[in-house]
């Protein structure tokens, strides 16, 4: 089980687009929102390891209905014989709290939304560590999510079905392939017998690169 005692506030401030010294009012607001959020979030994650097979039509995830299409996921899983599929969420109550806050205090809602994004990232990195511990003799690539590069987001629904994510952690997909609860992540990481080169990570393969708010201001999303 993953429990968060604290949310990465620097990360959240970065999502908010803040830079430099944090004014007092904002600092207090961030702390207040963090406290409220920590009371309602319920981190949950699941992962499952599958053998994969490279075919002309894409990467087959064996014993499932899934085929991963696109060049980016192919590059990502290069030299991997297995793939770990994972889902993580901070739960539906966080959505409700943000919705409630939006009514009465838009600034708090904005802060809370960014904090919630930071929180689900923390859940993912903790889950990453758990996955690494589960496969101690292999090397894990970083997480690659549907919607990154040319890895189609339309796979979301089948992805959740294969993971039985609705039953196990209450994760659903809505119209437009949006994950619900909103602050949730699905991702694929490859397992390789040999160390994974770092080069694959960064803006080059990101389909948001052109419109990225971080890049525009000379920043980086940390990916």
């Amino acid at each position: 089980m993953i429990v968060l005692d604290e949310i990465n506030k620097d990360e959240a401030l970065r999502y908010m687009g803040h830079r430099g010294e944090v004014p007092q009012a904002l600092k207090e607001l961030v702390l207040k929102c963090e406290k409220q959020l920590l009371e309602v979030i319920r981190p949950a994650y699941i992962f499952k390891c599958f053998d994969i097979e490279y075919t002309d039509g894409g990467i087959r995830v064996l014993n499932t209905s899934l085929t991963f299409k696109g060049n980016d996921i192919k590059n990502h899983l290069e030299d991997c014989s297995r793939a770990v599929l994972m889902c993580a969420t901070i739960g539906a109550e966080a959505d409700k709290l943000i919705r409630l806050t939006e009514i009465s205090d838009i600034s708090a809602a904005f802060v809370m939304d960014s904090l919630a994004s930071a929180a689900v990232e923390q859940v993912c990195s903790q889950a990453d560590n758990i996955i690494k511990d589960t496969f101690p003799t292999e090397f894990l690539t970083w997480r690659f999510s549907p919607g990154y590069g040319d890895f189609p987001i339309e796979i979301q629904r089948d992805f959740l079905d294969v993971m039985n994510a609705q039953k196990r952690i209450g994760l659903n997909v809505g119209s437009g392939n949006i994950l619900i609860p909103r602050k949730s992540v699905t991702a694929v990481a490859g397992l390789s017998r040999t160390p994974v080169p770092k080069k694959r990570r960064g803006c080059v393969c990101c389909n948001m690169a052109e419109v990225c708010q971080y890049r525009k201001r000379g920043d980086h999303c940390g990916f």
Partner: protein
Amino acid sequence: MDFKQLLKKDFIILDGAMGTMLQAAGLEAGGIPELLNITDPELIEGIHKKYIEAGSDIVYANTFGANRYKLKNHSVDEIIGAGIAIAKRACNGKALAALDIGPIGQLLEPTGTLKFEEAYDIFKEQIIAGRDADVIVFETMTDLYELKAAVLAARENSDKPILCTMTFEENQRTFTGCCISSMALTLNGLGVDAMGINCSLGPEQLAPLCDELLNWTDIPVILKPNAGLPDPATNKYDVLPGDFAGQMKTAAEHGVKIFGGCCGTTPDYIRELKKVLSETKPVKRTAQKRAAICSPSRTVVINQPRIIGERINPTGKKLFKEALRNNDMGYILNQAIEQTHAGADILDVNVGLPEIDEKDMMVRAIKELQGITDVPLQIDSTIPEVLEAALRAYNGKPIVNSVNGEEKSMETVLPLVKKYGASVVGLTLDQNGIPSKAEERFAIAQRILKRAQEYGIPKEDVYIDCLTLTASAEQEAVMETLKALKRVKDELGLKTVLGVSNISFGLPNRPTINQNFLTMALTYGLDLPIINPNADAMTGAVRAYKLLTNIDKNSAEYIAAYNDMGKPKPTVTDNSKDISLSYAIENGLKEESAKATAKMLETCDSMEVVNDTLIPALDKAGELFEKGKIFLPQLILTAGAAQAAFGVIREKMLAADSAPVSKGKVVLATVKGDIHDIGKNIVKVLLENYGYDVIDLGKDVPCETVVEAAIEHKVKLVGLSALMTTTLKSMEDTIKLLRENNVDCKVVVGGAVLTPEYAEQIGADFYAKDAKETVDIAKQIVG
């Protein structure tokens, strides 16, 4: 054989898992198992037969996910029809075949985007397709609202027995936050035939949850657990058949009647279960009858005074009426937030105004309110159609306000209360008006109770309002109300309701009268005072009463409410009293901004404050933001503080009957398919601050709605937002439809994935990179 006959048995045995059996037979993960009803019916029939041989009295047909959303291009009627036929063949009269229905696979609004009414239609299609089944089962549900849509669809399109089970986590909540008591109250009210718990955990972990459920309902309880917990690496379940059955025995001894297995269970589990249950004696159950209502995540038991907040009601409130006319849902929601913060346990909802469509407004208000608050609602309307629409849309068990002693009222309202399983407030008046004497009001209460019981409404769901008259006009009537109240409480054993504030009408110093009358009523046995919880004296009187009557043990609630009283409130700056409005806005200080505005209004005219202080402060923040001196969070904080200031000004202007000057209207929407609306809401606040009337259509808005609103309000500017690449198509479609209809307006678009180039490509007139730029565009277009 039918379900009624089965109920005569000591225990009823359901089947085990279908999915586990199919996976063992080679079904790949993520496939649609229901297609096997067509492609491999023998496999499915074989599994049913194994369960029946092992002892199942009811088998679930292979129809769990056979809905139009999950089946995509396959016919629901065909797949379900085949599934039921297979199950019936396997049963061959020895067992019952259940139409098995799981969650749709899409979450309902407000968490998701699926409408309640659409969910109803999806279930209705399944129910009709499964017409040959012996019983209907809804299982693995986590959203009470979805389950309500399902049960209504079953009740209204079939006469089969209905069995419902929901899936809870170890913290006794479902993923959507529903608690066991709320499930029990709601399903009891809707009149299902059995309810229980399935999936998620093993019998041992589910035992305490079962006990909780047994405590809340007297209908048969179902337990269908997993074979323990799955190993994350191998996915194998950890409880063996013998142990599984052994653990189920305990549940049987506690009163559970219907048993089966979920994920990981096989015919072996059912065989062991059958053996163990044949050696177990059933127990007689005595569930406690309680007066209680609920939302999915909160149950309010009326075992002590509970405050009903009265503020969601336009009577005598200019701002509220104005909000209703303008469709300003935010205003109503804020009333809810304020009252719950102040201590309301239940909220009365009345949105009746002659010039609006009350039914439509009521349904919208209920849906929006239950999206942001977990306080149960009291539906307040005089129109039966409004009551019924609200009862349908309500998620949980509400109170209906109200029925009265007139036969016509009782015969229209009470059947609705029964059908939807609500509680009801009975007013002690009839066609002859309000009787002056306590005896006569008591007689009407008796009559209402009798009729309610004839309709099948349990006694504990009838609350009586003995009606407060105005002391200044009918002084002698005050004690008659209280006498009647006491008799209703003591002799009929019913819960009592009373609107309190009327008592002081026409008198000076009303709060004193109100507070004292409230305290008197409480000592006479009032359970549900309808008051303004924001009035400290009133909430305080209830809290004090609970403390003094030893209800509030160790004064815990009282201390929690007043512990901070007198202590200075921590503020950002020490000299908060003298903070200027411009300082408050620049620093994003909301409360200080409101205070400073109120102070300025003592000496200045509203428009002066707006033009000389507020707008310049906003402009300055905008400029700093553009230059990169401040960042988005501060800009939004500034906007929030200004919003608070405008709230104060607006109130003052409406009170003086001078409507605020509008610069013009702007329509805003987050496009169809997209539910990321925080950016749009930030833009809204900024536009409002600059004096524009924003017609906020919300999120996931169909193209047609945008076009209709643009035409209806004759706007010059429409703002559209989208955050996903997948929803940009909807944005393009919306713009296209606006153009096709020759709507004379400009379109500004924004959202993370947009670029100026793309905006141009999809036919938008403007691209706004942030909220500030949208305001600049509005100035240019609207003026």
